[in-house]
Structure formats: C-alpha cells, structure tokens
C-alpha cells in the first residue's frame, strides 16, 4: 500500500508544481497580467462589460401555433483608452443558436466604433455605428420600449438596427440648451436587396460586412429636448448602386457616390410627464430609380414607402401615494397604433403588393420590478391587404388579412 500512497503524493506534488510553474509562466504579458488582476489599471483607462437581451413567447391565435425564442442576446464591450478616446462594441446573437446550413440565427457586430471627444460638446465616431434615425435605432434596449416586438415601422421602414460603416460627428449646442445635432457619412445601400421579402430597403443594408463603399450616404439629425418633449427629425440621403460604372451602365443604373439615391425623411416626438409617455413617429422613404432597379434585378422595389405610429403609455405607479417606494419600479399600460404602406407608390414596372399595406394595434403591460429588468405582456392585432400570389411574402399556413398575436416575454439591460 505504501508505494501507492507515495505515488499519489508524488503525483500531487508534481502536479501542483507544474500548475504553479505554468501559472507563473502564463503571467508574462501585460494583457495576461491585467486579466489576472495583478497589475494596477492605467489611470484614466477602464474597460466596461455590459449587455442586454430579451426572450419571447408568441402565440398566433388564428393559426393556433406558438413559438418561444430569445430573439437577441447582446454583449457590450467598451474600453476607454484616454480622456478623449474610447472604443464601443456590441456583439449580438440572434435566436440563440447559429448552425451551419440551417436558416435562422445570426452572430453579428451590432456596433464597433472608436469615439473621439473633440471637446466637451462635440465628438466624432468612426467604425460601425448606428445613425440617429428614428427612436429605436439608437435606443433599442428592450427596457426602453413597450411591447415584446419592436415597432413594425422601425423594423421595416427604418430597418433597425441600421448600422453602417463611416464617420459621424455629434454635437450639442451651447447657445440653445437642449439642442443636439449630428451628421454622418457612411457607406451606401445595395439596391439589389430592395423589396426583397417585402422588407423595403432592409435587405439593401451591408451592416458592415465587406460593404461596397463606392456609393455613399449622408445622414443627419436634429434632436431637441425642451420641457417634457424630445423632438427629433432626421434624414438619410444615399446612393444605392454599389457597382463600378461599367457594371452600372450595363444594368442601366445611375452610378457614382449618390447614384440611384434613396431619400428617407423622418420625424418623431416624445412627451413625458407624471407617468404619461406619448410617442409619435412618421417616416417617408423614396427610391428615385425604383423602375430602373426593378428592370435590373426584378425585385419589385417600391418608389415610395410611408409609415407612422402613435403610442400612449401610462405608469400606474405614478398614482401611488408613496412614490419614493416605487421610484425604481414601473407598471406601464400602453397602446400603440401603427400604419405602414410599403408599396405606397410603385414604378410602372412594379406590381403593387396589397399585403404590404398594413395596420397594427398593440396593447399591453410592461412591468419593471427593478431598473434594468422588464416583464412584458401584449396583444397585437394586425390587418393587412390581400396577398398577391407570387409576389407577397407571407408566413406559412393559411392566409388571413387580420390576425392576432399574444406575446409574453422579458428583457434586461445592465
């Protein structure tokens, strides 16, 4: 027996020595030392890790079907290099799992940019970022909007989260308190994806992946805080022909930086007071050369798309006598009406898809037990035009022009 114990002892001794040695050997670079917490952080520098995500159960009442999913889990990593230079990034996993050769799921960088503070009132960003268009595109955390689903208008007409590569300047006015502005130059769109699956310009985004940058886009926004109001207007003006001139000529498309341009105009207003939150947004998108694009790709691109929504929400806990007790909680009842017509105006060679003329009513409850966590329940009633066989992209199963969806879910951000 004794040799056995000696063997065990020797094994443990050698293992511990090996582990000690390897541990010491691992801490050889600054990065490893920092990870091991063995060096002091550099003054003025720090790294931030945070994230957000949401889970959702959806029942289609008419089709008697249901799905459960975690639509997005996002990890945020940021690092401050100095007083004036920082890095921000968001890594998103959609639908939890991505499997080769199977549809669904996505792993993508939602943002990855450097931020340079020019002075206290101005900063510059460069990299993959979200232009200030609409409400949801910049402020898309599930704890900041009512309903399990993002608004349809800001999913399709404003294809949130809409990120492109480029340079953006953001600033705050000193003369007019509450007034902010920004302007950005980003890569343009790809008209080949317009109208695909009835999603407007959504499939024309590059989202930072090997983006063709021959065509460009300018975006800009004015944002003004006054009283309980947050008022914003923004525009996007960009070329949609990403090809070289000879290819564009063959396709009979206008080329150049702003060739076959897309013009998007948007305005939104939010009002908050004593538990009441009102949000309204309207957007119009115009694709100037939709006819030429259809002739080139046969994708039934629309010429004009329109959309708007109006939402009322009220935090019932604002009625509580002991308000301080509930200051980090909320119980919001809300109702939203959305209207969108993705085929408002079609070019002569386009086919109007009446299914893309839609109205959605969403009503429900958002409960926030603590800041950063929300539980949501809502019901969406959708009315669409009739489907056009061979043109409309509709969910599988029997087609109905009106449908109801029950949604239950949660969201978090930290």
């Amino acid at each position, binding site marked *: 027996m004794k040799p056995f114990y000696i063997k065990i002892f020797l094994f443990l001794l050698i293992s511990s020595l090996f582990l000690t040695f390897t541990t010491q050997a691992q801490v050889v670079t600054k990065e490893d030392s920092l990870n091991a917490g063995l060096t002091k952080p550099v003054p003025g520098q720090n790294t931030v890790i945070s994230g957000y995500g949401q889970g959702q159960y959806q029942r289609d009442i008419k089709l008697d079907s249901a799905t459960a999913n975690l639509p997005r889990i996002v990890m945020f990593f940021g690092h401050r290099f100095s007083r004036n230079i920082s890095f*921000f990034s968001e890594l998103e996993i959609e639908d939890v799992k991505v499997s080769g050769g199977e549809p669904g799921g996505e792993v993508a960088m939602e943002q990855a940019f450097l931020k340079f503070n020019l002075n206290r009132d101005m900063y510059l960003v460069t990299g993959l970022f979200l232009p200030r268009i609409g409400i949801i595109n910049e402020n898309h955390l599930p704890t900041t909007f009512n309903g399990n689903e993002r608004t349809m208008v800001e999913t399709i007409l404003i294809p949130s989260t809409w990120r492109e590569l480029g340079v953006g300047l953001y600033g705050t006015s000193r003369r007019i308190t509450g007034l902010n502005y920004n302007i950005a130059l980003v890569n343009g769109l790809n008209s080949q994806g317009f109208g695909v699956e009835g999603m407007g310009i959504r499939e024309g985004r590059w989202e930072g992946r090997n983006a063709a940058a021959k065509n460009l886009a300018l975006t800009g926004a004015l944002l003004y805080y006054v009283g309980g109001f947050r008022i914003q207007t923004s525009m996007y003006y960009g070329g949609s022909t990403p090809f070289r001139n000879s290819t564009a000529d063959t396709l009979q498309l206008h080329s150049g930086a702003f060739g076959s341009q897309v013009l998007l105009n948007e305005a939104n207003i939010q009002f908050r007071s004593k538990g009441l939150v009102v949000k309204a947004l309207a957007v119009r998108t115009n694709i100037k050369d939709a006819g030429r694009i259809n002739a080139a790709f046969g994708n039934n691109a629309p010429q004009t798309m329109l959309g708007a929504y109006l939402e009322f929400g009220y935090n019932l806990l604002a009625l509580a006598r002991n308000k301080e007790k509930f200051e980090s909680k909320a119980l919001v009842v809300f109702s939203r009406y959305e209207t969108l017509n993705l085929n408002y105006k079609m070019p002569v060679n386009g086919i109007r898809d009446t299914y893309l003329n839609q109205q959605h009513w969403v009503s429900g409850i958002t409960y926030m037990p603590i800041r950063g966590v929300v539980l949501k329940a809502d019901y969406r009633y959708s009315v669409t035009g009739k489907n056009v066989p061979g043109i409309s992209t509709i969910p599988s199963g029997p087609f109905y022009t009106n449908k109801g969806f029950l949604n239950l879910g949660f969201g978090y951000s930290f």
Partner: protein
Amino acid sequence: MQEKNDDRRAFIKKACVLCAGMAGGLSIASLLTSCVSLPRVKSDVKNNTAEIPLSSFVENKMVIIVPKHYYYDILVIKKSDTEYTALEMKCTHQDNMLVPSSKGLNCTLHGSSFDFNGKVTEGPAIRNLRTFPVEISDNKISVRNVPTDY
C-alpha cells in the same frame, strides 16, 4: 372622373402635410426662441474643489461648472438661498455627457433621463447621478470631491 378624384385626394393630402409641417415648424421655432442657454462658468479644481462666485446665481437657478481638469461638467442647482445641489453630468449608463433641459438631464446616446435630484427617470440607466457636496462661504460656492483624473 376617377383621375380627378385621385388628383383632388393627392392635393388635399399634400395640403394637409404642408399645414402640419408648417404648424410643426412654427411651434418648434417658437420653442427655440423661448429657450435660454444655461450659463457656463469655468473653474480650476484645487484640492478636488471647484469654486464659482455666488453671484452666478443672481439671475439663474442653474449654472454649469466647467472644471478645468475634469472632462464632465457639473450642474449646480439652487434649491434655496442655503441649499444647492451639484450633479455630475455623466450618464451612469455609458458615461456620455448629459444635456440639460428644463425638466432634467438627458442622454442623447441611449435616451436615459434624470431629474434635478439626480434620480433616474428614464432608463436604460440604472444608477442615479453622482452628487457632490456643496458649501457656501465668502460669497463663493465650493463643490467638493471633484475628480481630476479624467
């Protein structure tokens, strides 16, 4: 006949959009002209203390201190002759500089809002704003514990 109706509808629609746009533009213009910018006072930070003259508050209830050795501005709010609150204008969500309005402080990056006590009124921020101790002496407002390392 149908074409005429369509034209009329289009005209009415355009006219409505134009009227709404004009009304919106006018109301925004009136809001802009009625707003006032907050005074900004530069201050050295010595021994982690920023000082500004008490007279800065004669005509204003709020003054923004711009500390020389610190990136973030500090909003000082006069609550009474003897009570002042100093708030760090740094969003507790992702450290963005906040923008003041007549109702509180707002973050342009992700939409967080805070009231003039520094409390979160709108997420995604979770933590309240950092406040600094304020002292009044010799006709000066002294804001203590101001960092100088960033």
